[in-house]
């Protein structure tokens, strides 16, 4: 790990540290088994229907031709390309777990816990989020073997005002102030 990467980890930890002490809610898996978590007080994000061409497919119209209103936390953590695992006191799951009952149970048990600390474990190149009721989220960086690309995010943290901060697969940072 070069000096710039160490500085990137340090900066990323400072950003994640701003979420420590907040409750996590609406923990869920998305397409490609990305992990999405909300922290802090909720507000509504509203996407108005898009203007679509007359040739748009039924699926595109169904997805983008409607208004979408979604509750979002003050912070939204989006684990996009990182391989994640969630462990709670009685359950565990990870990305691409095909046992949906087990996965849902683990995410449900994490839901509502308070983030107590954030670590970066060098030996494993892992992010480790610890919660107050024994839950944890571990995020490993994807590798080229996983079809990962350098410029894509292991995780990204979105703030309610539209700013975001991401830690990339190449251990560099990207952000929108």
């Amino acid at each position, binding site marked *: 790990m070069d000096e710039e990467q160490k500085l990137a980890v340090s900066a990323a930890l400072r950003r994640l540290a701003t979420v*420590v002490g907040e409750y996590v809610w609406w923990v869920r898996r998305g397409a*490609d088994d990305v992990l999405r978590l909300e922290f802090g007080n909720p507000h509504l994000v509203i996407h108005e229907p898009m203007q679509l061409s007359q040739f748009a497919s039924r699926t595109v119209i169904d997805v*983008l031709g409607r208004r979408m209103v979604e509750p979002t936390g003050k912070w939204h953590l989006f684990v996009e390309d990182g391989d994640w695992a969630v462990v709670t006191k009685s359950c*565990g799951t990870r990305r691409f*777990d095909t046992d949906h009952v087990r996965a849902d149970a683990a995410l449900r048990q994490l839901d509502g816990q308070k983030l107590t600390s954030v670590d970066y474990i060098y030996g494993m190149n892992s992010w480790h989020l610890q919660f107050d009721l024994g839950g944890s989220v571990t995020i490993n960086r994807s590798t080229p073997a996983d079809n990962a690309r350098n410029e894509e995010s292991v995780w990204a943290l979105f703030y309610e005002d539209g700013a975001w901060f991401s830690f990339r697969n190449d251990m560099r940072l990207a952000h929108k102030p």
Partner: protein
Amino acid sequence: MFNLRPKTGLSGFRVGQSENQPGFAIDENGEGRSTLPIGFNVPDLGNDIYGDAVQAASDVGDTQPAASADDPQGLKMANAAAREAGLDTPELRQKFHRAISGQGINSYQELLNIARQIKAGTY
């Protein structure tokens, strides 16, 4: 493959705990020191409930996407569509995922169409 237990002997960063300040954990000799607070006990995997949970996560097995001729991107089909459409910021990709999550879309072409619309539009 995940190793879910923090290793107490590894140097690294730690925040959110009063025992250590954020930053590199280097002692006066320049050696890495434990990043875990004094008194922190790693759960014993052999006989407590954490052990069962960690084991459960480990038992999921190797779930990395399996690429094939029909599915060259493995399980990361949405990611591949986002790439092809040029969704080049976390913001755009997050919007894309917000739109498609829970829709049950399993057609690469449809995902690509949606991603292209998001790239071109004001969603």
